């Protein structure tokens, strides 16, 4: 019997450091480990003893690509503890802020991280020579996303504008009007990107894993909603720990998570699958025109799902920018009080759940953060197991390429998840 050992010692085009090790004996997989070895980042402990005002600034540092998500889950939980109610205008601005993050994060993943897999290039720089129009368009959209985050966050990296109660500064009407024009002008490019990603030939696979996402009575979910699954789950963020369990796997510094004892899948594909009836009419029409059937059990549709969500984010951003009236103040006053509360929002990669316990001054006694990549880790391993079985006849190089693409479908953000990629495949 031959042993095949496939090792991807350092996974590329993912955020953070991880590795994949696979051992195949004959046609049987005897070992498969997705190892995450960025050191644990201990953010939950760093937060203890910090005051409520510092929380969104600290949590924004957990991720360079989705700081808005970390800020939003935090401020919602803190406001819940304080019994604070924000105004509809601030609620709109938070949604706008989130649109910016979805646009920049998704545009970057589609063009620089995922697309080279489907066009047979080792990286985006090589692909850009043959597809300059598409990559340029993607980078243009990404820059608009960055500037939306900057509009409210003060800067695109480690933004500092968000606080419990709202934003330290509400943007000027002139800045908003300039953004509105750029967003409107970009809409044909966004639609072009959706059609382009829909036309990409992807492997036809089915992954039978529960989809988990948020759901709101009448919006495509970002900041608000219940946590639902296609298996009947429908819970409030406060009940997360009754259904979802985190556990340590020896080979990884990221926690794994299960839903009722099983792997589950969060992110753009599950989110779109569970919210097809919440798409803006323009996006729904565009989705129908692509001819791709939704809901989809295929992680390779992640690139299209992201493109669709970029369209959602542009439509939403335009709607919010159009009706913007500058409030006298960007935030409502909040009064600290002791308590515990949980909140969940839809980060670009899936649901991001936070729970805080604060004392009477509003200082953090306990913080618990469950990022989307750790939630997907068990599902990613299950997917990889199936991917190896489907591709056993490929040679080691082709198999490795296939498995790396399978991992990138989930756009794992290893930096966020560590508390996490390299690939090794062993065949006997």
């Amino acid at each position, binding site marked *: 019997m031959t042993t095949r050992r496939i090792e991807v010692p350092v996974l590329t085009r993912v955020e953070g450091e991880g590795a994949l090790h696979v051992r195949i004996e004959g046609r049987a997989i005897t070992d498969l480990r997705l190892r995450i070895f960025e050191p644990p980042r201990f953010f939950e402990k760093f937060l203890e003893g910090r005051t409520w005002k510092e929380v969104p600034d600290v949590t924004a540092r957990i991720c360079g690509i989705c700081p808005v998500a970390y800020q939003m889950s935090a401020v919602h939980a803190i406001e819940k503890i304080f019994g604070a109610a924000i105004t509809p205008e601030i609620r709109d601005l938070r949604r706008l802020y989130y649109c910016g993050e979805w646009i920049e994060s998704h545009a970057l993943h589609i063009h*620089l991280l995922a697309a080279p897999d489907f066009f047979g290039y080792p990286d985006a*720089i090589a692909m850009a020579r043959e597809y300059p129009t598409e990559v340029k368009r993607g980078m243009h959209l990404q*820059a608009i996303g960055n500037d939306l985050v900057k509009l409210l966050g003060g800067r695109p990296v480690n933004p500092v504008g968000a606080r419990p109660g709202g934003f330290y500064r509400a943007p000027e009407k002139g800045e908003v009007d300039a953004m509105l024009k750029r967003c409107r002008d970009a809409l044909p490019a966004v639609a072009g990107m959706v059609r382009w990603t829909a036309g990409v030939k992807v492997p036809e696979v089915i992954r039978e894993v529960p989809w988990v996402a948020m759901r709101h009575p009448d919006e495509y979910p970002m900041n608000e909603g219940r946590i639902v699954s296609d298996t009947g789950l429908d819970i409030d963020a406060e009940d997360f720990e009754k259904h979802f369990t985190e556990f340590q796997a020896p080979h990884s510094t990221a926690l794994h998570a299960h839903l009722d004892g099983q792997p589950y899948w969060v992110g753009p594909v599950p989110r779109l699958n569970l919210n097809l009836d919440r798409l803006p009419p323009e996006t729904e029409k565009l989705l129908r025109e692509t001819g791709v059937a939704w809901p989809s059990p295929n992680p390779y549709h992640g690139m299209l799902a992201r493109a669709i969500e970029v369209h959602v984010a542009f439509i939403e951003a335009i709607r919010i920018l159009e009706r913007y009236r500058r409030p006298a103040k960007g935030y409502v006053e909040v009064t600290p009080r002791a308590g515990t509360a949980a909140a969940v929002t839809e980060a670009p990669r899936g649901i991001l759940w936070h729970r805080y316990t604060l004392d009477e001054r509003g200082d953090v006694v306990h913080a618990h953060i469950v990022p989307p990549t750790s939630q997907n880790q068990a599902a990613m391993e299950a997917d990889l197991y199936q991917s190896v079985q489907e591709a056993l006849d490929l040679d080691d190089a082709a198999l490795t390429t296939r498995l790396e693409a399978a991992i990138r479908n989930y756009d794992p953000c290893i930096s966020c998840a560590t508390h996490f990629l390299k690939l090794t495949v062993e065949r006997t």
Partner: protein
Amino acid sequence: MSRIRVIGIGAPWGDDQLGWRAAEALRMRYAPHRVEVLTIDRPGPALIEYLSGAEYVLLLDAVWSGGPAGQLHCLDAAALVALARPQALSHALGVAEAVALAASLGTLPRELYLLGVELEQATAGAPLSAAVTAALPTLVEAAQTKIAEWLKDISGPGPETIH
């Protein structure tokens, strides 16, 4: 639109503020229609957008190469492209990778240089180090020399290729 653009790149940590400080010093010295000066915070791939529309671009940034703190570096576009690590593309795309991507896209300006100073530290809350502060005037002077060449190119006789 001015045909020369100076872009100070940085972050608010210690010596990484160098690009901003140098750009601010240059902003005072040129009329905006002659030289456009921008300061940007860790742009990642968005740098590609900032490079477009100008013919001559000067990037100012702190550099970390392991050399002595305060050392002046001058890199042209080809040198930057050679430094890029395409496989390392992730969310944390650096200046060299962004320039390499712009090169692949065919959107590089006619001339692109990066002038930088070797940093000593990039600590949160820290000011510029003494070594980098001392090197700032040299950097600004080197930038002015480059800008002067470009201004001469632009005003010089002979046909110009503007697309």
